[in-house]
Each structure stands twice: as C-alpha cells, then as structure tokens.
C-alpha cells in the first residue's frame, strides 16, 4: 500500500519532514560601500580587482576565467533545464562594506553581529570550534582562530588575505585541483571569487577541534562566489565545517563556490557541509580534493536547502594507498531539486574510495544521484564501493540515479548498489501498534533511514540534524 492512501496524513507529512528554515529567514537593510552593480563584464572584474587591490596575476587570472565562462555552454545536455532560468545579467557580483574582517565579535558591525548571533555562530565558537570565519555577502566580517594554533603555524584566513600574504603557499595550489575550465560555474567563480577560506596546516599538526566557516547572503539578487583552498601538509589533520543560509527573497540568488583540498602525504582532511540555503538559491558548487600518498579526503555533505543544488564532491587519489570518501545526505522538498553525487578518480595503485549517498524526497521534491568512478588500466589494486539509497515519502516525489563506472584492467574491484524504497504503511502500522503517534513513527522511520550517516557528522551537527527532523515531525500530526 502506498503511504499516500491515507490522505489525512499526506498534507501533514508534506510539512512533516520540512526543515525549519525560519531560523535563517531574515535580513537587514543593505549598507554596501562597494557594489559592482548588476551583470558581468570586464568592468565588473576590474571593479572587484580594484576594490580588493588584487595583485596583477590575480587580475589576469580573473579576466581569463571570464573568457572561459563565456565560451562554456550550460551543461543542459545532461543537467536540468532549470539552469536556463539563471539570469546572469541581473545578478550582483560583488557587495561589501569595505571593512576588514574583525578578530573580535565586539568590533563587528551591529547588524552583522546580530545576524550571526541569531544563527548561533559565536556561541558555537565558544563551545567547540578551533576557529571561525563568518562571511557576509562578498567578504568575511569576522575571522578568528585560537591563539595556540597560530603559534603552531596554522593559517586560517580569507582567500584575499591568503593570496596576498601567503602567496608562496597559496599560489602553487590555487586553481590546480579545479582548473578554471573545469566547468562553466568554476570559470564563473574564478572570474569573480571573493571570500572563502585559505587554510594551511603545517606538517604533523593535528587539529583536535574543527574550523568553521559560515556563509551568509543578505542581499537580493546577489551572487556569492567564495573560494576555499585547504592544504594539509604531511601528516596533518583537519576538519573543516561550513554552514550557509540566506533569507528567502522574491527572486533567485546564486551561490557558486569552488573548494579545493590538498592532502599531502599521510594527511587527512574532512570537509563537512550543512547546506541550508533558502529555497530560491541556485547552489552550483565545484568541490574536489587531491589526496597524495596515504592521505585521506572525506567529504561529508548534507543538502537540505536551495532550489537547485548541483554538487559532486570529488577526490583525485594521486598517491599510493590514498583514500577518498563521500558521505552524503540530501533532503528534497517541494520545489527543490537536490542533484548531488560524487566523483572518484583513481590515479595510483591500491587506492580505495567509498561513496554512500542517501536521499529523501518529500512532496514534489526531486533527488538525483550522479556519480563517476574512474579506474585506469595501468593501475592495480584499486577498489571502489558505491551505495545509493533513496527514500520516497509521497507519490509525487522523484528520485533518479545515474552512476558511471569505468574500470580498465583486471586488477581492480568495484561494486555499486542502489535501492529505492518508501516508508510503508506496514512499518508505520507496526510502530503505531506500539503506541507511537503517526508523526513519531514517520520521524523514526526517516531518522532510521539516515541514522548511520548522521553519525558520521560531528556530534554537534548530528544532534542538530536529528533534532530538526524530530521536532518537525512531532508538531505535524494531530
């Protein structure tokens, strides 16, 4: 029996698994000193370069990227036609108040402080974070890290500071993991990037607490293009978390980030994202990690918000025994399309990769998995495991899976599995028999489905995730 047959519940469940978005749905009046205006031309690029006082090589890099962006077609031959609804001419590419990021929350402008306080960032920083960067539209408003880390040589600054003050570390890796011409949106980001983090963890330094970045869009028709580069030197370990929200404007907003990770020999990078953009944000992000010998790159990705997310975190395993992993949870509600996946490029012997993806489609939401696994023939001992599971809540929910696996030679092993299921009436009936309300039963079923993945998130995030789903379920029925 379809879950839908109990119509009394349908409308409730529609609401039920919806996540609390009201928390991020507020904004303050704009007070920008620098505004690059609408649309994207050479002038926009020069304006950004002038405001940011970019070195000449960055200016050239941006101009070249603009050309690439113009030449690249939209990937609509395989991706959704919804991309055509992005109007690049009305987007505002750079907005800032011209202030430098502050080291103390006390110095942050009041409205910005209020914004991040409402989102709970200073509180979290005190509780469990090693460092925080808070970005408001195009630039970071706050950036701080525990003092002892500075002494160890850890660098945690925004990308502008990174490319100016640490050029010798920044430049050799910048744009190397994700070249400008990787895709149309990586080219766009390369042309107009601003904000994002630059992190360097010196040899052997293992960060016990995570670093966090928070990305906030406050202005309508704004495009946020942060650029993050994380380098973990030999034997270093770091966990980086990013969160993001935006108020719900009338018109759509664009977020197009590029994130490059470099894990040198024996290093470990974990990158955790909890994406909760409002449902009018196009979230088109390119993320890729490079793992050298014995290194490990893990992407832990949770996509709850946005109108359309296209995100396929990748790992290039370049050194022997390198390991790549993508753990992903996607929740697609009405009007949302979560098009996520993973890319695993094996480029050395005995490299292993693992992809576990779970999606939940609610109402008319659509969840898509796209994956690519590539194992060339001159290698041996490479292994990949891919699992994708989808849960459908309503009869109009959609889910798609499109993996592509190429294996050359007989020295490797790959396996791929996917399943689609729904919360069955039997399951709910069983739990209701034991005294749970319908809402509690539904919540339990959904939480059970993603439970093993939620545990991969840092404690504070996993509690938050489960609570969000629980709370919403309880209030929805009866």
């Amino acid at each position, binding site marked *: *029996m*379809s*879950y*839908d047959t109990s119509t009394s519940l349908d409308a409730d469940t529609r609401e039920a698994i919806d996540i609390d978005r009201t928390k991020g749905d507020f904004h303050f009046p704009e007070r920008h000193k620098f505004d690059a205006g609408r649309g994207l031309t050479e002038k926009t690029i020069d304006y950004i370069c002038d405001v940011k006082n970019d070195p000449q090589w960055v200016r050239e890099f941006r101009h070249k990227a603009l050309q690439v962006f113009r030449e690249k077609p939209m990937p609509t*031959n*395989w991706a959704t036609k919804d991309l055509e609804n992005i109007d690049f001419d009305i987007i505002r590419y750079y907005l800032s108040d011209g202030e430098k990021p502050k080291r103390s929350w006390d110095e942050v402008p009041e409205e910005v402080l209020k914004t991040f306080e409402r989102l709970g960032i200073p509180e979290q920083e005190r509780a469990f974070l090693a460092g925080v960067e808070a970005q408001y539209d195009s630039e970071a408003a706050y950036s701080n890290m525990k003092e002892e880390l500075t002494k160890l040589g850890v660098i945690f600054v925004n990308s502008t500071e990174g490319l100016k003050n640490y050029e010798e570390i920044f430049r050799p890796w910048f744009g190397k993991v994700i070249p400008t011409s990787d895709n149309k949106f990586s080219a766009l980001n390369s042309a107009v990037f601003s904000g994002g983090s630059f992190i360097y963890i010196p040899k052997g330094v293992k960060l016990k607490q995570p670093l966090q970045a928070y990305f906030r869009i406050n202005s309508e028709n704004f495009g946020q293009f942060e650029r993050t580069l994380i380098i973990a030197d030999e034997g270093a370990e770091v966990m980086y978390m990013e969160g993001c929200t935006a108020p719900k404007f009338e018109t759509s907003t664009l977020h197009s980030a590029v994130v490059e990770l470099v894990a040198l020999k024996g290093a470990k990078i974990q990158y955790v994202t909890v994406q909760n953009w409002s449902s009018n944000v196009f979230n088109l992000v390119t993320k890729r990690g490079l793992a050298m010998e014995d290194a490990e790159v893990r992407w832990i990705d949770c996509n709850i918000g946005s109108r359309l997310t296209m995100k396929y975190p990748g790992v290039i395993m370049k050194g022997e025994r390198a390991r790549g992993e993508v753990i992903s949870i996607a929740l697609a509600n009405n009007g949302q399309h979560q098009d996520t996946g993973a890319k695993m490029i094996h480029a050395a012997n005995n490299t292993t990769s693992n992809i576990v993806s779970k999606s939940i489609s609610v109402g008319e939401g659509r969840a898509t998995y796209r994956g690519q696994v590539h194992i060339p*023939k001159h290698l041996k001992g490479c292994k990949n495991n891919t699992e994708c599971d*989808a849960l*459908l*809540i*309503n*009869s*109009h*929910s*959609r*889910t*798609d*899976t*499109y*993996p*592509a*696996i*190429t*294996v*050359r*030679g*007989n*020295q*490797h*092993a*790959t*396996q*791929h*599995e*996917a*399943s*689609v*299921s*729904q919360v*069955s009436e039997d399951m709910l009936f069983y739990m209701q028999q034991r005294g749970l309300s319908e809402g509690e039963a539904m919540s339990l079923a959904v939480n059970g489905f993603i439970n093993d993945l939620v545990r991969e998130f840092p404690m504070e995030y996993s509690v938050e995730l489960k609570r969000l789903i629980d709370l919403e379920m309880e209030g929805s029925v009866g």
Partner: protein
Amino acid sequence: MSAVLDMPSILDSAPATPAAFPAWFAERQHAAWQRFLETPQPKRGDEPWRFSSVKQLDFAAFARPEVSATSDLVDRSVALESPVAKFVFANDTLLHSESNLPEGVVCLPLADALVSHSDLVREHFMKQETRLGSSKWTALHEAHLANGLFVYVPKNVEVAGTIEVFHWVAGENAAIFPHTLIVTGANAKVRVVDYFQSADASPGLVIAVNDLIAGPGSKLDYLAIQALNEKSKIVQVNETGAGKDASTIGFILNTGASWARNESLCRLEGEGARSDMLSVSVPARGQEYDQRTFQHHVSPGAYSDLLYKNSLYDKTRTIFSGLIFVDEGAHRTDAYQTCRNLLMSGDAEANSMPGLEINADDVKCSHGSTSCPISDEEIFYLRARGIDPARARQLIARGFSVEVIERLGDEAVEGMVLRFLDDKFAHIAGGGA
C-alpha cells in the same frame, strides 16, 4: 569486389519501395528516409553515446548487394534440432522456409506479410519512437527495409517449440536491414530466435530492429544470437511492449562482430506484466559491445528484471547504460537491474552506467553493477583439483555466463545458446586469450 564498389552507398540515396508493397508502407519508407537525413549524426558528448566509439558510426562504405550464388547457406543454417518453423535469409532475400505451425498463426516473411496482411502489419509496425540514441539508424533501417519476419499468434494459441530465423550477411561491405515483428494475442505463446551471421570473412553491417508486442496474459520469448565475423558491425534495436499479465523474455548473445550496439527497451503497460531482459557477451581481441537498456514502468504493479553479464578478454571494451524509469502513478513497481563484468585481462575496459528515475512511491527498485577479475582463491580451488589455470579460468567464465542462460527456461534452447558460447570459448582458447 568491383561490383560492390559500383553499388550506391546505403547513405547516398533513398531506396525505392517495391511496387507490390502497400502505399502506406511506401509513405513510411519515404518519411523514414527524410527523418534519416534530418537526424544529426551522433557525436561525442551526446549523452546516449557516452563512452561510445562514435567513429564506428561511419557506414558510408556499405551497400546492398544481391546475394550471388545460391550457396551453402541453407545447409549451414542449423541450430536447434527441430524448430517449429525456420526461415533463412541472405542479404534480406528469402532462401528457404519451412513451417509446421498451428492453425491461425501467421508467420511469414515480412515482404509477403506486407502484401497479404497489410492492415495487421500496419497496426503494429514500428509504432514507438527510438529513445536510446539510434533514431538515425532506425530511420535508415525503416527506409531500407526489404524483409524480415512477421509473426502473429492469435489469442489462446500456444506455439510449442521455437521459430528460427537466420540472417546471413554475404559479400564485401554488404549491409542488411532485418526486421522482426512479433505480435501475440491474449494468452498466446511463442518463441523466436534471430541468428545474425556472416556468410564469409568480409566486413558487413547489420541494422536490425525487432518489435515485440505481447498481448494480455501472453508469453513472448525473443532471442538474438549475434555471431558475425570480427570485421562486421551491428546495430540492433529492440522495442518490447508487455500488456497486462504478459511475460516477455528478451535475450542477446554477443560473441561476434568487431563492434555491436544493442538498444533494448521494454514498456510494462499492464498490471502483472513481467519482463526479463537478459544478455551474455564474451568479447575478445579488440571487440567492443555497447549496450543500452530502458525498463519503462508505465503501469503500476509490474515486474522487470534485467541481468547483463560480460566476460571481457584481451583489449575489449564494454559499455552498459541502463535505466529503470518509473512513471508517475506506477506504484508497486518491482524492478531490478544488474550488470556484472568479469575482467579476464589487464587491458579490458568495462563502463557501467546503471540508472534509476523514479516518479512514483511504493516501489521496489534496485540496481547493482560490479566489475572485478576472477579471484585467486577460485583459481587455487580448481588447481588443487588438478585443473590447469587456463582451463580453470575458462570454466569460471562459462559458469558466470550460464547463470543468465539458465533463465531461458527451455533445455533445447539453452543447449543451443551454450553451443554458440562454447564455440567462442574454443576460439579464445585457440588463438585469442
């Protein structure tokens, strides 16, 4: 040879429809030729041709020569011991037919059926759009179509045994366009096998289409045995529609051809419909097999199960791209899709794209894809029992394929398929791997 070179290429001019054929068919052929001209050539980057060697799609050298001598082809057309009917075509010309079918069953060369059962053929002939990439080639097929087989089994008639159709390609750069159209009435039953083989060692081209329309409660099994020589190419497009409680089997064996493209699409159009899509491919040397499948669940409560297995030797390539597509409202769908690749060489390449698109809930869908070599433990086990490694590998690869063949559910047919498979393994042992 010069005679062939003088013939017009199949791409150059629209063939004339024989005067005996009905007017509607002439119109269809004319329209098909226009469609062929208008449809762009597939190119790199087209999603339905991802990973494909699109350079294989140059068919300009091929023409349609008459079959010359009344050769030994009829004698060579032996597979099953006692088929219930047998047809032998060479270059789309009928050489031989014999039939021992129950009354009411129409089983005719398509060229005859077009004249004698024009309306019946018209009702079912190529009604569906080609969705998996080869629309240009099915248009070319339709335009050049001269013969093939038409089978109509009226309701409640069960054909015991198997209908065999041999399609030979003869002569240098010859192209054939065999068509198989099978229609079953309610609760009818039939099995048809198409054999695609080369008469000689020269390169040939086959662009084959089969339309299978299974009426309510009927059982329709279709097998394609592709054992062309290793200079030839084949594009084979299957289109199956399964009605309420109908059960269909589509099976493809690939042992021959330098390059083969199979497109199989099954529409489950009624409650309780069941479709088994099966394939065994054993590429060796430089062979490349490109298979695309589509399980279309239109109706709720239908079942489909796909199992494709490839054993890849030498420098071969396989591409598997499958999609389970569940329409809105097709609840209680039960659909499976499995592609397994056994890598027998360090130079082989297996590409798998198992896909799902689900627009309904209360469905059970899963797909799986694996690619790996034979494990050392398995070889060790057999060596410990006195079997040499080469033979051990052969045995395991054979057993790997047999799992699919056993699902055909008819001993005589399974035996026949195994003989083709064993021929290939012997061939590999003799000079390939």
